[in-house]
């Protein structure tokens, strides 16, 4: 099989290069300062970046987000008062009522994209960031990173937040609807998750390699 022109040359890792995932252009890697990003010169996609935050700041953010996550789910999101009856809604209420009313897929979407996936994301971040800080390679790091990559597009806390706000304003003409601590919780959680996602997973792969 071995040909003269080296068609079956051995596989090599090229850490000096970066390939654009959107147009396949090959670029020479260079050092970046914190907060800088290298963009593809051909299509403009981000090749790699260095976050303004270091791993310790990320860990702090993750822990903070986990605490806020608990608060957002324990505290009610909204209270509605009409005709002397007060109704409160938690995220769990929304999931259970959707299920009870025969729209299981909606219950599954809400439970997954607002509760399970963000919780899994935060737990995995915690694990992965601690693994990066350790001098040796951690078992399970690779699997955790793959899960993080799959989960990322399916975490929809920010969409949920805006959906709830729209719904509150819609109902406000019919009844007294007030935002509760849970809604603020989801607001803060949105900000923290957005800050966390400025950290590219590829950066963590590289950090774990070093």
């Amino acid at each position, binding site marked *: 099989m071995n040909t003269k022109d080296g068609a*079956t*040359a051995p*596989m*090599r*890792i*090229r*850490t000096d290069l*970066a*390939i*654009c*995932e959107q*147009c*396949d*252009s*090959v*670029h020479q890697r260079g050092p970046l300062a914190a907060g800088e990003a290298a963009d593809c010169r051909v*299509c*403009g*996609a981000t090749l*790699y970046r260095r976050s303004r935050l270091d791993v310790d700041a990320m860990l702090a953010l993750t822990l903070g987000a986990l605490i806020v996550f608990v608060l957002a789910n324990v505290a009610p999101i*909204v209270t*509605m008062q*009409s*005709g*002397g*009856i007060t*109704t409160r*809604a938690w995220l769990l209420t*929304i999931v259970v*009522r*959707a299920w009870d*009313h025969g729209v299981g*897929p*909606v219950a599954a*979407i*809400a439970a997954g*994209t*607002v509760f399970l996936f963000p919780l899994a994301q935060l737990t995995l971040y915690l694990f992965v960031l601690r693994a990066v800080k350790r001098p040796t390679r951690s078992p399970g790091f*690779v699997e955790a*990173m*793959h899960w993080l*990559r799959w989960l990322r*597009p399916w975490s*929809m806390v920010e*969409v*949920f937040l*805006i*959906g*709830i706000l*729209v*719904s*509150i*304003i*819609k*109902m406000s003409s019919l*009844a007294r*609807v007030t935002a509760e601590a849970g809604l603020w919780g989801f607001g803060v959680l949105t900000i923290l998750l957005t800050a966390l996602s400025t950290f590219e*997973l*590829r950066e963590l*792969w590289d950090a774990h390699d070093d």
Partner: protein
Amino acid sequence: MTDDTAIPRGAPLGLIGCEACGLVVEHAAADASCPRCGHRLHARKPDSVTRSWAYLLAAFILYLPANLLPVLHSKKLFEEWSDTIMSGVVALWKDGAYDLAIIVFTASVVVPLLKMGALALLLVQVQRGSSYLPRERTRLYRILEFIGHWSMLDVFAVALLVALVHFGALGNAEPGAGVVAFGAVVVLTMLATMSFDPRLIWDAPRTPARRASDRPPT
């Protein structure tokens, strides 16, 4: 603006960038896995055009029930009515809540339609081997990726309404089948977008002469 034809591309050089972790591997065997993360290495996502079309067509089909079936049934004493997404927008507009009407209309009607239309355009142009405005088409793809999940907004709004309004003085709110179809459309378009491989946009032959013909003669 740099001359982008001067920058080499990975595939002809036998270089593959791992889709999962970004590691660049040279001379990978046909069925090799990434030495860092174990993800299967391939120069392009396998069958991406077919898979993307399949998800997209499913989304197109479900877009009909999502808009024709009611998303919400409401009951109040002797009154009973059903709302589709469009009638909900119209009701908001008539109530004078123009800003909300615009938000819901954009997130639930315009964005899904534009998304499906834009992805269909990207797919057709890749299949025709078009080399027209690759940079702009790649940017369009990035926008599709970014706005993908925002259409789920109305599903959450309906879910909260259903959770709060029941057996009270306000009556009763029941979710309609339209909301399930709508959620499915959002998930399917997201899957269609993820299946598409933007690198295919750049695989059409691009020669400097071809690029010069993009501009009108002066």
